[in-house]
């Protein structure tokens, strides 16, 4: 038998001015099932809340309806009151007679009638409310971080320092990402490697972090708090436990002319290689596509010369299985190559390079030891043209967005060039200058005013080679669109930042959404930038969108804090407004027919298949089952179910139909 208590709030004059609360309360008291109906000036106040507490106790209420403001305001308030009085909070609901009634209509009988209708609707619903309890899901307190660039490293350190275990998986032979390729970082001109290598070492030595390099995520299963991941640790062909990182193998390897990925093609490496001197871990890898042994069965010079006898040609890939509770995706970005630009030579001019390649030239550990030299003939360039927005903001190239970091690094490159070659001429051909961060504008001003970099506003239509020089054809729009032709020794393209290779495949494995550019999608662009729509998977760094180092670090720490919050209890508590597939006694077991339309309709893939078997293991039927950990409670499955076998707790069919019938 329902014993509903109805409380009509005046909300001062907000409701009382247009709606007659006394009349509403009086009408409600005559509704079957309602045993207590009063009105009061301010229900949310202490005395107001006390009214509810006392009524629950004295009248043994089985449900409470507060007719006042929007539930989006005070539902938690009143639910808490009920919970504290011993009444299940989900037996308390609010009728919105303020935003939806008193505030939008004039004072009249019609308005009061409407208020009565609105309260009546909620009363009928609450009569059919069932008590619901928060769902508890166990949590494995280990985090998986995918990607070992600055964002992945930061996230790993933060989570590990909070006392939780971290598994860090990196595809390349060493962690470091793109940041370790940079020479100096804006706006401070800090040496990138100097600030990064300590972090990399910290990751390697941290007791809570397990580092798997030259590894990739193979498969992911499970749900928040309970993921099962399979990691493929690719074969290095080197026994890491025996190898001392002495480097003799690299010195002896006869294959020396392989373009180095770390040098962005500006330098060479050997077939057995450590990508760079400060690599973490400092253990080599054999590039099977270029090693003479793997190609032709010959050589083996490294094996013969290794003092630690660490070479293992027969080493195979290893699959490592792990249980994790949360995942941080920090897979970073890539940049377009010069071959994406027909108007700048289809990549055939050696002296037309990308910004990343320029970083390697400028870097003290680079192929030219930090001297800016033309790749073609090794001479110092007297004139360099930097072309900004190469590919970005260009619908014709299919990239409409701004890559964010290029204005800053172009200014930086121009400055570094001028610092190294004082008499050199630097031109920057730009569309706009975007320097919005802290100390960024001052940095660009410094390039223009102190270092004498020439900024020409106008796009470059063509670059071609003539007599060993590069002719750059651009325009100066600030001088009335005058054509400009510059004879340069080198051209640096600030190419667009794009999603890293394999981003789409990884997103599909993780079941995370991604956009048309293969950047991973955040849950809400403004308020939830580090979460995805997949519960338990977080984002950090440029895999979400191009960004600079301070933002990547901030986002990584943000993601780490979300993970720490997730790990703060032994169990995860979730709101029980979720769908449930019915179960009933044998021989029916469930009215679900196993058509699994709900499985396809669910935006969160929260529907699983459950096999109902006899005691002997014989299969009777396969029915749908809702995963409590994932279901968000949207109710789409309820509407598509043909047999009405699935229902939404809190908005069940019975409840909603009752609401409609009350009108």
């Amino acid at each position: 038998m329902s014993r509903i208590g109805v409380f009509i709030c005046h909300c001062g004059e907000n409701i009382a001015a247009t709606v007659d609360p006394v009349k509403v309360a009086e009408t409600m008291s005559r509704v079957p099932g309602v045993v207590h109906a009063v009105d009061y000036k301010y229900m949310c106040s202490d005395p107001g809340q006390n009214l509810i507490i006392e009524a629950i106790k004295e009248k043994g209420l089985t449900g409470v309806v507060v007719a006042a403001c929007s539930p989006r305001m005070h539902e938690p308030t009143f639910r808490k009151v009920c919970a504290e009085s011993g009444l299940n909070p989900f037996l308390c609901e609010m009728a919105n007679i303020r935003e939806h009634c008193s505030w939008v209509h004039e004072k009249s009988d019609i308005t009061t009638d409407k208020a009565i209708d609105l309260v009546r609707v909620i009363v009928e619903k609450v009569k059919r409310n069932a008590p619901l309890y928060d769902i508890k899901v166990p949590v494995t307190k280990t985090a998986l971080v995918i990607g070992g660039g600055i964002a992945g490293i930061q996230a790993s350190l933060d989570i590990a320092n909070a006392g939780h275990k971290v598994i860090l998986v990196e595809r390349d032979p060493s962690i470091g990402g793109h940041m370790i390729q940079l020479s100096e970082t804006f706006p401070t001109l800090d040496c990138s490697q100097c600030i990064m290598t300590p972090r990399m070492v910290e990751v390697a030595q941290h007791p809570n972090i397990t580092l798997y390099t030259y590894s990739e995520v193979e498969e992911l299963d499970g749900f928040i708090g309970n993921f099962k991941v399979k990691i493929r640790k690719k074969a290095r062909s080197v026994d890491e436990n025996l190898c001392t990182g002495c480097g003799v193998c690299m010195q002896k390897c006869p294959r020396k002319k392989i373009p180095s990925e770390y040098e962005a093609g500006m330098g060479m490496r050997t077939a057995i290689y450590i990508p760079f001197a400060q690599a973490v871990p400092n253990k080599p890898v054999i590039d099977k596509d270029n090693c003479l042994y793997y190609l032709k069965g010959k050589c083996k010079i490294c094996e013969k010369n290794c003092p630690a006898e660490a070479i293992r040609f027969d080493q195979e890939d290893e699959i490592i299985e792990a249980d994790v509770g949360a995942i941080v995706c920090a897979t970073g970005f890539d940049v377009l190559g010069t071959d994406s630009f027909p108007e700048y030579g289809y990549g055939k001019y050696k002296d037309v390079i990308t910004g990343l390649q320029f970083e390697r030239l400028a870097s003290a550990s680079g192929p030219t030891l930090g001297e800016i030299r033309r790749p073609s003939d090794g001479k110092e360039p007297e004139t360099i043209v930097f072309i900004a927005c190469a590919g970005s903001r260009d619908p014709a190239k299919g990239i409409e967005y701004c890559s964010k970091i290029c204005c800053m690094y172009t200014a930086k490159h121009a400055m570094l060039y001028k610092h190294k070659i004082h008499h050199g001429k630097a031109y920057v051909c730009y569309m706009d200058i975007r320097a919005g961060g802290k100390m960024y504008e001052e940095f660009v001003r410094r390039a223009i005013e102190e270092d004498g970099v020439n900024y020409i506003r106008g796009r470059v239509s063509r670059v071609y080679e003539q007599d060993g020089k590069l002719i750059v054809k651009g325009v100066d729009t600030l001088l009335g669109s005058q054509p400009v032709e510059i004879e340069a020794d080198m051209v640096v393209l600030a190419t667009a930042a794009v999603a890293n290779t394999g981003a789409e495949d990884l997103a599909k494995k993780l079941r995370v959404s991604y956009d048309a550019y293969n950047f991973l999608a955040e849950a809400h662009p403004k308020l939830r930038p580090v979460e995805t729509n997949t519960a338990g998977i977080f984002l950090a760094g440029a895999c979400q969108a191009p960004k600079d180092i301070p933002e990547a670090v901030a986002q990584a720490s943000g993601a780490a804090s979300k993970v720490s919050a997730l790990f703060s209890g032994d169990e995860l508590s979730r709101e029980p407004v979720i769908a449930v597939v019915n179960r009933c006694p044998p021989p029916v077991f469930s009215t679900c027919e196993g058509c699994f339309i709900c499985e396809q309709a669910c935006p969160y893939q929260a529907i699983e298949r459950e096999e109902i078997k006899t005691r002997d293991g014989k299969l009777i039927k396969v029915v749908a089952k809702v995963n409590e950990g994932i279901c968000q409670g949207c109710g789409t499955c309820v509407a598509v179910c043909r047999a009405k076998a699935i229902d939404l707790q809190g908005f069940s069919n019975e409840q909603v139909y009752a609401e409609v019938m009350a009108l």
Partner: protein
Amino acid sequence: MKLGYYPGCSLRGTAREFDESLLAIAPGIGLELEEIPDWNCCGASAAHNLNRELSLALPARVLALAEKAGMEEVLVPCSMCFNRLAVTRHELLEDEELRKRVSDIIKMDYQGTARALNILETLGKLFDEGIEDKFVKPFDHEVACYYGCLIVRPPKIVQFDRYEDPQSMDELMKKIGAHPIDWAFKVECCGAGLSISRTDLVAKLSGKIIEDAVHRGAEAIIVACPMCHANLDMRQEKVEKLKGKKYSIPVLYLTQAIGLALGLEKKKLSLHRHMVPVVFPPREKPAIESKSKTKTGKVAGQVEE
């Protein structure tokens, strides 16, 4: 190979060498051409500057006539005609309303089955395995292949070759024994229709093209378009006056170069009609030092030691 043939106004007028040399080489390379009966002018730049419907109706009529004659593919040597026919077909197939309107104007129902082919892709199809044997007098010269603007643009419509650095003509020239150079002005503007109204601009723009070709050691410029030919050949004198240099670099239609390689006579290929005499002085010293240090593919002008 049998194709429909649309010469257009220039090939029967100022660019008759193109027509004559094409018809001269056709039997030698296995090409049979059937001219579209009662063809009209394509409208060129004049029509599309003045009236949109006219600019579509004129080429549409040509294509509709081809359709009526049962031709599926039509060779259109002139780049402007080719461009107009290709663009018209594209626009009418995209917009049903427009197609109906234009069909109404020309009083023929244009279905879109007849397609224009440009000279480069046609020759590309014809020059298959073993064609080199037919070239009894290989065209052993350094050549600069000039494509002009209309064969490769707009890329989305003509969908032909790399639009900043096309290679199709270069490949054809290689097959006839020529040595195409890598140069920077393959698709740069020659001044086009300003040939008469602003000859000074044509001199400037065409001048850059000729200068680059000669500088990189070309002995001839090969073209596939009557307008290109006019500006580079007929206006070469003006260019020389502007630049204060003597170039005397012959400008040949690719069909003429092919004809010479096939062993045909100069007169048959109408080489005598050109303004700049088609003569190739013997090469004593290596052509201009354009040894570019940057990697640009095969750089011509370097004599094999």
